């Protein structure tokens, strides 16, 4: 009975190892693609432009955040949520993620700052009749800006990023959104199964020791009876 349980756990564990290896291969393939495309972009870059850390935006904000859900057996499941999609839809998840909260706060700050500067310029420059119209225009623009996907990392390297860099981004998103969260989820599940296997093995060892002791007692009883 105990052996059957261990066998089924080992079977599950082996399938997890298989999935882990497959995901590893996938991640390696994706990352190779990213590196090749960045190298290609660097090779074709104008005036020796290097697409590297010299161009990182020092005000960068995460566009993708991690969501961790605990299953019934306390095994965490990792998924990546894209905040590029409707901002309203993401607000619910923001409560779970500090990072997302920070991002939201900073967004709000940015928005208020924008509004304030708009007010000041309106007050200074506009005559009374056109002020309202221009203010509404400004508000519309602000709204549009708020709706637009923000801070695309591609824009750190200029508005017209080369095609290889775009391809690198696509592959990287695939790695971050699919392969990496799946890999860590599988790893977490493997850890959980490992604990179960060790427990089951211990239980079996205890049961076997108890059986051996019982047999010994019976044997000794039989010897004494003779």
């Amino acid at each position, binding site marked *: 009975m105990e052996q059957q349980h261990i066998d089924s756990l080992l079977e599950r564990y082996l399938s997890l190892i298989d999935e*882990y290896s497959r995901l590893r291969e996938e991640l390696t393939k994706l990352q190779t693609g990213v590196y090749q495309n960045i190298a290609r972009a660097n090779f074709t870059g104008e005036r020796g432009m290097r697409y590297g850390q010299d161009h990182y935006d020092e005000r*960068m904000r995460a566009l993708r955040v*991690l969501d961790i859900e605990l299953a019934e057996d306390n095994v965490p499941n*990792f998924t990546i949520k894209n905040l590029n999609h409707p901002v309203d839809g993401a607000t619910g998840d923001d409560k779970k993620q500090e990072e997302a909260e920070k991002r939201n706060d900073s967004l709000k700050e940015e928005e208020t700052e924008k509004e304030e500067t708009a007010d000041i310029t309106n007050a200074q420059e506009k005559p009374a009749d056109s002020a309202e119209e221009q203010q509404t225009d400004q508000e519309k623009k602000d709204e549009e800006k708020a709706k637009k996907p923000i801070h695309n990392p591609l824009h750190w390297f200029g508005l017209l990023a080369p095609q290889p860099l775009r391809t690198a981004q696509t592959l990287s998103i695939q790695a971050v959104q699919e392969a990496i969260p799946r890999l860590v989820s599988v790893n977490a599940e493997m850890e959980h199964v490992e604990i179960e296997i060790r427990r089951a093995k211990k239980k079996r060892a205890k049961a076997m020791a108890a059986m051996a002791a019982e047999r010994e007692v019976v044997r000794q009883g039989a010897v004494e009876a003779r």
Partner: protein
Amino acid sequence: MSSHADFKDRQFLADSVTGLLLAGIGHITTGAEAQKNFLVVDNKTETAAIESAFESFTSRKDIGIVLINQHIADRIRHRVDTYTAAFPTVLEIPSKDHPYDPEKDSVLRRVRRLFGE
């Protein structure tokens, strides 16, 4: 010559970070003490700096997965292998010039331990 090699090395390592940041997972907190959620390691980066970054990333509440290049993890192997907390979880990834080595993978080493090798 050596400076060219240094530059190439630096570029190779930075490519790992650039690639990941392109996916939009880079974050720098606002405020006086702006904290990055990444560290670009080059051959001049001291092991102590990598160790302290690892320490800081693994103790931050807003980080769920710590991604580290496998050959960088080798430099602080004792730290990586003794880290057992569930969150944040640590994942070793290959870099441009150091392909993934299953022999060094902490997950597969754990598997071998389980099967008694």
